[in-house]
């Protein structure tokens, strides 16, 4: 008699799948559906224990404001919490999973050393209002990073506090306005912005009280220098130019533009979102700019985190330095000091003021400094070279299949721009993008910049291998060919993602922004 009575034997796959019924759970093996916390949690459950039963205050100091009504917050135990968020995470695409060529967003590898350093208690467990002699190391981090940023850009000073790129833009434009007002030139009310600019540029200028006028682009994808010069005059406060620009091209005339703007009494703001293309090879200060923000989450690889937090330090020329916002970190007699409202003194008397509570995105500073020290001056130069090489490789590998409107303009910088020209009638960039999802890639940026019809902006970054690029090129070529041939299955792509195309019109027409209980949660535990 055989010992094994269980019927077990090594499996060999059966041929032919037959009709596969849908699973009763809605799950598909490793692709797991997850309900909302409001559907799985309740008001009694908690994943946090307190050492002892909480002591009630001997005498409450809350008066009549003591909470009576329930809040309506569901709780989960720790295992349920870990599972909920782990399952949600698996419905996301991230750089760790694969190639993420989202143009203008610079989705490069996020080194884990940066995460580890940011979590050292000496940085993560320090209060912003501690006496400054107890936070000398934190101030030194800011000071060291500031030194790198100023040196790499060839500028005079840097304001570290802006919270993100758009906040940095606001910082730069406010400094320009403060400088003009100090010179009695407050009547200058126009900011010139190229049509290809990020939406944040005109939004920022408007937020800062300026009227925005477009500058046209030339047929080769650059700012029309002649048109810009013609528009300069006593009503123009300045220009906001992205360099390298959003078409992925270096603004060749930048120095000439800067000189013309200065001669006309204005200032030059440079959107530094694309600094990663030139870091270590070009210092923006040599191009005559007055202010530029640096997205630490782009060039210096702090994680994008599903939409922030970012960090947007702004470097300034000598002309704008006196107007930069507070606070500053300075070294005085061997000690690091925080220059705030009370200590601004004559040196910072022209400062336009404070933009944020406290001192900026410290957690991003530690990560960025770690990244910078890892690369060094030589590694950062290699970063921009490889980023530009990768983008040109994609551009030249695909310009026989996809229309590259500025391909004839010469080499691109860190991103390759294609259009939807040549796709079959009724097919557009979105269909190519959704087809790429099924191929296992995050799509490129779609329909931006606005100056190109059906723009596809592909930014590979320097942290991709040639093999990864080759696989992407083959996939995009295949999807593009299908879109040119009018393959109807592309119109309904993606087919293999956790969700099919979502109804954005419905979401906007009848906004459902918060969960509404079908029945009220059980009354809170008293």
């Amino acid at each position: 008699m055989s010992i094994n009575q269980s019927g077990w034997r090594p499996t060999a796959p059966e041929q032919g799948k037959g009709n596969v019924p849908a699973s009763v759970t809605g799950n598909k093996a490793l692709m797991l559906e997850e309900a909302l916390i409001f559907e799985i949690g309740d008001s009694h459950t908690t994943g946090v224990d307190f050492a002892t039963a909480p002591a009630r205050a001997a005498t409450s100091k809350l008066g009549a404001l003591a909470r009576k009504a329930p809040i309506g917050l569901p709780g989960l135990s720790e295992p349920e919490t870990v599972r909920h968020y782990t399952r949600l995470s698996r419905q996301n695409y991230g750089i760790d999973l694969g190639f993420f060529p989202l143009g203008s967003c610079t989705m490069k590898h996020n080194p884990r050393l940066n995460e580890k350093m940011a979590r050292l208690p000496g940085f993560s467990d320090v209060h912003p209002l501690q006496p400054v002699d107890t936070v000398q190391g934190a101030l030194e981090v800011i000071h060291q990073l500031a030194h790198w940023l100023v040196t790499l850009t060839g500028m005079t000073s840097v304001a570290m506090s802006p919270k993100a790129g758009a906040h940095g833009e606001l910082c730069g434009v406010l400094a320009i306005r403060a400088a003009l007002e100090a010179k009695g030139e407050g009547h200058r009310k126009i900011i010139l912005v190229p049509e290809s600019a990020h939406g944040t540029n005109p939004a920022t200028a408007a937020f800062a009280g300026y009227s925005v006028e477009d500058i046209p682009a030339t047929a080769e994808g650059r700012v029309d220098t002649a048109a810009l010069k013609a528009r300069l005059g006593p009503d123009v406060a300045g220009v906001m130019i992205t360099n390298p620009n959003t078409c992925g091209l270096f603004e060749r005339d930048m120095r000439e533009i800067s000189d013309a703007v200065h001669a006309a009494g204005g200032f030059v703001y440079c959107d530094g979102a694309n600094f990663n293309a030139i870091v270590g090879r070009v210092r923006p200060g040599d191009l005559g700019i007055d202010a530029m923000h640096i997205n630490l989450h782009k060039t210096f690889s702090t994680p994008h985190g599903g939409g922030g937090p970012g960090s947007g330090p702004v470097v300034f020329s000598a002309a704008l330095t006196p107007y930069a916002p507070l606070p500053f970190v300075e070294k005085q007699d061997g000690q690091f000091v925080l220059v705030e409202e009370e200590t601004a003194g004559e040196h910072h008397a022209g400062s336009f003021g404070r933009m944020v509570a406290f001192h900026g995105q410290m957690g991003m500073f530690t990560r960025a400094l770690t990244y910078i020290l890892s690369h060094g001056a030589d590694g950062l130069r290699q970063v921009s070279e490889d980023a530009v090489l990768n983008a040109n490789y994609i551009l030249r590998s695909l310009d026989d299949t996809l229309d590259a409107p500025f391909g004839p303009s010469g080499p691109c910088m860190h991103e390759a721009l294609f259009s939807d020209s040549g796709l079959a009638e009724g097919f557009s960039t979105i269909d190519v993008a959704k087809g790429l999802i099924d191929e296992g890639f995050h799509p490129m940026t779609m329909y931006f910049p606005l100056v190109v019809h059906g723009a596809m902006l592909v930014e590979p970054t320097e942290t991709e291998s040639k093999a990864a690029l080759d696989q992407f090129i083959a996939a995009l070529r295949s999807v593009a060919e299908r879109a040119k041939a009018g393959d109807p299955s592309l119109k309904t792509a993606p087919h293999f993602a956790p969700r099919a195309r979502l109804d954005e019109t419905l979401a906007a027409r009848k906004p459902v922004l918060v969960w509404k209980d079908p029945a009220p949660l059980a009354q809170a535990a008293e």
Partner: protein
Amino acid sequence: MRYLPLTQPDREAMLAVIGAATIDDLFVDVPEAARLDGPVRDLPMHASEMAVERHMAALAKKNLTAGEAPFFLGCGAYKHHVPASVDHLIQRGEFLTAYTPYQPEIAQGTLQMLFEFQTQVARLLGTDVANASMYDGSTACWEAIVMARRITKRGKAILSAGLHPHYVSVSNTMAKFTGDVLDTTDPRLVPEMDLDRLIAKIDDDTSCVVVQYPDILGRIADLRPLADACHAKKALLIAVVTEPVALGAITSPGEMDADIVVGEGQSLGVGLQFGGPYVGLFGCKDKYVRQMPGRLCGETVDADGRRGFVLTLSTREQHIRREKATSNICTNSGLCALAFSIHMTLLGEAGLRQLAEVNHAGAVAAAERLSQIPGVELINDSFFNEFTLKLPVEARPVVRTLADRGILAGVSLGRLYPGKDDLANGLVVAVTETTTAEDVETLASALQEILA
């Protein structure tokens, strides 16, 4: 270089495909005068992981951390215990290394999380809706003032004396450029908030009143009369919450009819981090949703009829509306919002209310003990986990002396209101679940000794 996968043969093969002889040929559009011929001078070269770690660890060691000392600082940033699972989960690569969910089919994780976050925040603040986060509390506060101007088409905002001075400072900076008129004043060391002053000032030009709850000195007050006074003049009430844990113990501003409630979410999940990154909370009444700044996530269905989530109402935003947008904000504070949301899910209603109770009980006991020190006076009649003491001497040097003894005693008002003599003796003390009875005793005896 460990982060760069291309090999030299790769580079050469790729240049051949491109048709370029050298990498320099790809930078031809840079004017020659601006091209650097080698690494930027006077900066160090690349370093090993171990060397960088040593460098950073040496800097970290120069700081006195909150965990090493009896710790009593608050004023807009609070030390709370963050469960270990929060930091583990936010480091999942699919959250950490994702971006703004522009492709919803492969970003449902972030989107569902944002929908849950919006709901948690709205319920906590007592508002109908909330957005997907702002940079921090101070910038959210200014954005709320701008939003009130858009809604009311009036340009005068009245700020409570109890609003965090950095928040006031940010608003003042911005108002200089936008032309908004702000009515501000410094707080006084008295038990009552300045609601009577605020109510008396509201007129037909007032867009909004901004009040912090609990305020910078830790005081709390019923906001309903203020809300009624605002609404009688068709102005909006904006409430600012810098300590969201408080709302586990006290009635939320939304429940008292505030129109816009903003806050600093740092207390939950985020940690002190020397001031950032933090996470701005932003909620309002339903009728104002189309005037809100920032990203919004909404529920919808996919082509197969399954529930899903997308970014929505983006016609308010800069990438569509450009200079006509409600704000220039683009990136928000996604990962901090995730940390906030996970911590809140772990707590749940029961946990948050317990946490709030522990905080309040600890603060009441500490206030009683510290106000027994001769010459030390407790200003507050009401408070949650933070209160203000009036010392017989200037508080700032006292705080420095205590720091030398390894005690982080609180925030002196001299630090927050430099040059204001009548506030110089004020010390704001925060007590959370991380504060032990021994910590309080250590502070009390040291303070008593210094003041003797």
